[in-house]
């Protein structure tokens, strides 16, 4: 059995909570970003691109590339690698520019 990152640093996190990802609960630890909580749950993609409809998730992990965008609490185009996964945060897979409601 290989060790985990949490075991490596002797982490004793506060109690886990949940965020909502596309209608299902995903566990999150206090202090984790939304992207980290999704990775921990084995989810690597939470956006489809505007042109090709291709899946995307974290690329740069530091807020520079904007690949990890998702709709968070109803607001599209949020960088999930920067936003904390707070209790009750709702994350929705973003399709294209995430503004389908503005289509005419």
């Amino acid at each position, binding site marked *: 059995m*290989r060790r*985990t*990152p949490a075991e490596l*640093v002797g982490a004793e996190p506060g109690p886990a909570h949940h965020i909502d990802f596309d209608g299902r609960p995903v566990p999150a630890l206090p202090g*984790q970003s939304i992207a980290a909580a999704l990775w921990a749950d084995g989810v690597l993609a939470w956006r489809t691109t505007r042109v090709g409809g291709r899946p995307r998730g974290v690329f*740069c*992990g530091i807020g520079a590339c904007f690949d990890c965008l998702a709709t968070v609490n109803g607001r599209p185009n949020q960088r999930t690698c920067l936003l904390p996964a707070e209790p009750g945060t709702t994350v929705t897979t973003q399709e294209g520019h995430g503004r389908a409601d503005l289509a005419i």
Partner: protein
Amino acid sequence: MPTSPSDVPRYDLAVIGAGPAGLAAAVTAADLGLRCALLDAGRQTGGQYYRHPAPGLGAARPDRLHHGWSAYTGLADRLAAHERAGRVGFLGGHQVWALERTGDGYAVHVTLGPEAADRATVPAAAVLLATGAYERQLPFPGWTLPGVVTAGGAQAMLKAGLVLPGRRIVVAGSGPLLLAAASSLVTAGAEVPAVVEATAYLGYARRPGVLAAVPAKLVEGAGHGSALLRHRVRLRLRSAVVEAHGTDRVTAVTVARLDADWRPVPGTERRIDCDALAVGHGLLPQIELATELGAATRTGPDGAVALQVDARMLTTVPGLWSAGETNGVGGADLAIAEGELAAHAVADRAPRPALVRRRARLRAFAELMAAAHRPGPGWTGWLRPDTDVCRCEEVPVARIREAVEELGAGDPRTVKLLTRAGMGWCQGRMCGPAVAWLAGSGEPGPDRRPFACPVPLSQLAAEQRAAAEG
């Protein structure tokens, strides 16, 4: 929260970026009697190099994910003491989007929090740029698949969130960050079937004197090397990942040997199964806040554009100083030395001669490292017509080649106007080097980004109102 220059007292020095350079600069400047603001987009100090878990994760041993962690805790302790004494204000969650020269110094324009919900302007007599670097990427078929992440990104997510992108992670590209990333990943429990490095590391041997002058660098390299040996990680030199495979996520990569110019050698391809790939080709200085003010730049031996500074770390713009990666990528020890030097110069105090010598040795090593990992021209040999170059706007190689070969575009700006490559969210940070290369313009010039990060229109309007009323 302060919202206009009249609301807050003017600082003697605003340090932008709380990584190694900025931390060292702020605490040294405060030691010398200056009143400093230390701004960072993140909520914690440390920058990318000393990125660490948020307090809620309760990490007892964050040092196990770091080289030289005690240097950080030393700086953080000094910062805390200065904060208590009111000599330094750490302003976390402050993303600087522009610097403006005012009659008596600078207005530092800031957007607050990851959602850019509010704004602020921090007035200061002088500014020290310590904004670090981001990774240089070279596209290859499949690089947009989920599970393909930057080497620095894999480290950042691990250091801050204690998570991994997969269980079997190939590390590829070029530069010393690859060894550091692979070493952290295996220590944290991932399997790393291969570290794929494009160069042969022979570049370091060309100037053995420079290497011998910085023994700590050899020890650091040996530390990563022994972790990799212990976990039986195979180091494949003069090789590159030439394709990532998978439909909805990466499931394997193809690795090929490269010739001395980084051209893939046909017939040498082999497939490695994996569920993630961490890739990067060195680092690029993040300097747009300075270049927007007209600061002069230089192109380093790695082909990256950095700020031109004098021996005191002063840029060509009055009152604008720069320390660390913004002066050419060279690592944390160099960044700390330059931060200390710059702080002395801003305070108009002479630095210790030993500090000046140490900085010179580390800077010489940085130049050697930069030359050793400079991408070779043959890398375009692994591209295919349908490989996306610009990730944001989904612009493939074929459209860029069409703009260059049929429509006569000879520089990245014209390619951008014709194809939208570099016009998306990231403002060309990911595709910039590749587009410049494909445009045939040789060395890229400094990036021009009037806004260093996205700023809501409402905040720009508020800025106008404040200026009109001011």
